[in-house]
């Protein structure tokens, strides 16, 4: 195991009865990385997170946090973890401060000054002595993050952390998580449905589908898979087939796009004049032509549709 590895999945599998919810996960997350965990609903993301924090027993294999097995050395392993599992469910009848005090008592060596520090950090100073029942979802999310950071974890696990935050809050959280990873060396494990958000936040992504890890690579490689740039052409839907045959001369692959009348060509910017000349000469009117940046969403949909 690498010195800087914080989490190590070792053939982790979860079976309930005869159903396999998560099968044979093997990967590592090093210190200082923001790792994005993607997958359609029901793929097993939440089960994986619950196995990682010991809420759900691992059927086969194991997960190690800083070298300690979560199933056999729970206390030593969980010491390094801060997490929000699904919703930031805190005690509504306690104040924000009492909630933090409650979790501080369960860890060792958390001084009052540390609680004040995290309260300041998540920007809840004005409302911290109010009952959590009066908080907005965004404020509860911030308090959730505060309790996860209280004991300075080496691994931060966040399930849908941007849920309920306003755009400014999302922006702030993204920068904070990046700083936490890149400057303080915390491994951040984020699962989210907000793919555009994940693209801005994560260093590496893993895609889970039907309980299996179907892809794991750096964000750049992931998005740029099969060449980074594509030309997107919009023409009359009825001329699509004609255009396809013509364009086969320039590009060995002509992909249909999500909208009717669009074609995607894995070519570079310099090829735009040639493409437009070819189509114009054949009398096919072009409504638009340009480069299209691929987004995480495109890749995500491609992958999950491929294997699905």
């Amino acid at each position, binding site marked *: 195991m690498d010195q800087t590895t914080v989490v190590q999945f070792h053939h982790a599998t979860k079976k309930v009865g005869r159903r396999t919810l998560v099968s044979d996960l093997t990967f590592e997350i090093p210190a200082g990385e923001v790792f994005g965990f993607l997958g359609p609903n029901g793929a097993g993301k939440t089960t994986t997170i619950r196995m990682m924090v010991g809420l759900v027993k691992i059927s086969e294999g194991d997960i190690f946090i800083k070298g300690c097995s979560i199933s056999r050395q*729970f206390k030593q392993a*969980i010491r390094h973890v801060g997490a929000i599992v699904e919703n930031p469910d805190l005690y509504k009848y306690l104040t924000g401060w009492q909630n933090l005090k*409650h979790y501080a008592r369960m860890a060792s060596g958390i001084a009052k000054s540390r609680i004040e520090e995290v309260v300041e950090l998540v920007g809840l100073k004005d409302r911290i002595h109010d009952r959590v029942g009066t908080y907005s979802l965004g404020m509860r999310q911030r308090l959730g993050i505060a309790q996860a950071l209280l004991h300075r974890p080496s691994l931060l696990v966040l399930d849908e952390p941007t849920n309920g935050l306003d755009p400014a809050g999302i922006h702030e959280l993204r920068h904070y998580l990046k700083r936490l990873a890149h400057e303080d060396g915390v491994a951040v494990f984020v699962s989210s449905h907000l793919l555009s958000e994940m693209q801005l936040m994560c260093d590496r992504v893993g895609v889970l589908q039907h309980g299996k890890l179907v892809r794991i690579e750096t964000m750049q490689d992931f998005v740029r898979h099969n060449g980074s740039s594509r030309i997107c052409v919009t023409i009359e839907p009825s001329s699509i087939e004609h255009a396809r045959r013509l364009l086969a001369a320039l590009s060995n692959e002509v992909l249909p796009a999500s909208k009717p009348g669009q074609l995607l060509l894995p070519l570079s910017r310099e090829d735009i004049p040639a493409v437009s000349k070819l189509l114009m000469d054949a009398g096919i009117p072009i409504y638009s032509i340009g480069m299209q940046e691929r987004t995480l969403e495109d890749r995500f949909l491609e992958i999950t549709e491929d294997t699905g």
Partner: protein
Amino acid sequence: MIGLIVNESMKIYSRRLTWILLAVLVAITIGTAVNGRESIVNQADWRTETTQLVQKYEERLKITELSPVLRADAENKLKIAKYRLDNELPPPANHPWHALLHTSGLIEIVIVLAIIVAADIVAGEYAAGTMKLLLIRPHSRTGILFSKYIAVSLFAVVMLLLLVACGYAVNALFYGAGSVSATDLFLNRQGQVIQLNVMLQVVKLYGLSLIPVMSYVTIAFAISTILRNSVLAIGISLFLMIAGNSMIEATARFAWLKYLPFANSDISLYIFHLPPRPEMTLSFSLTVLLVYIAALTWISWIVFRKRDVSI
């Protein structure tokens, strides 16, 4: 572990419900004490009054359809009244300790309120989703479960103390502080009349009642842990309590019922020498209850430790 118990207690006492329950307990205790206020016994006339009592109980014992419990009660009182006349022992003047012996029925209220808190302490965390963040701390599930159990037990103790303190205070307003060394006549296990310190009898009655209170707390706690539903836990526990109360008479007829917790859960029956069955003793009842407490706690522990938390 201390930190965990502090946490659980903080959660109990930060809820408005808890304070409402405590207020209800205080109100009922005061109400009962005021209602039970007795006129001062005329000490000079005690022989006439006691003789009248003897006649009253003798008349009552002639009623053939008298229930076994009422018959035993009348026999006991008759025995004590006769003993007074024979030995020139006037009944003691009213005092708060004496009054507390006769309001032990209020322990039922403590049981109801303790059930409400115990039923919610585990199930409530599942319902609110807070169980997840509670379990991902460097503490064993065993520690977390038992900290909850201990916190509810302490809450039950607080309620019993509050019951005695409130009852004493109100009665002290009526009858004065009362003597710590006052004695009265009781019947021992063999049915012989003996003189005992009243305050110590009160301490024994309320102190040992913690065991029956805990047996209902443990039932509610176990259902709360196993079914993860506080409403069901309250409902089933209260049903068992009510059904159990009506089972004391049945226990006189069916011997096997004495091995269920119900007929064993009223300590005052032993203070006033009214055992549900002649062979039942205080230590028998306490042993039966402790066995149930241990078994239910063990089941809760097994379930809580093994279960996947997926809600």
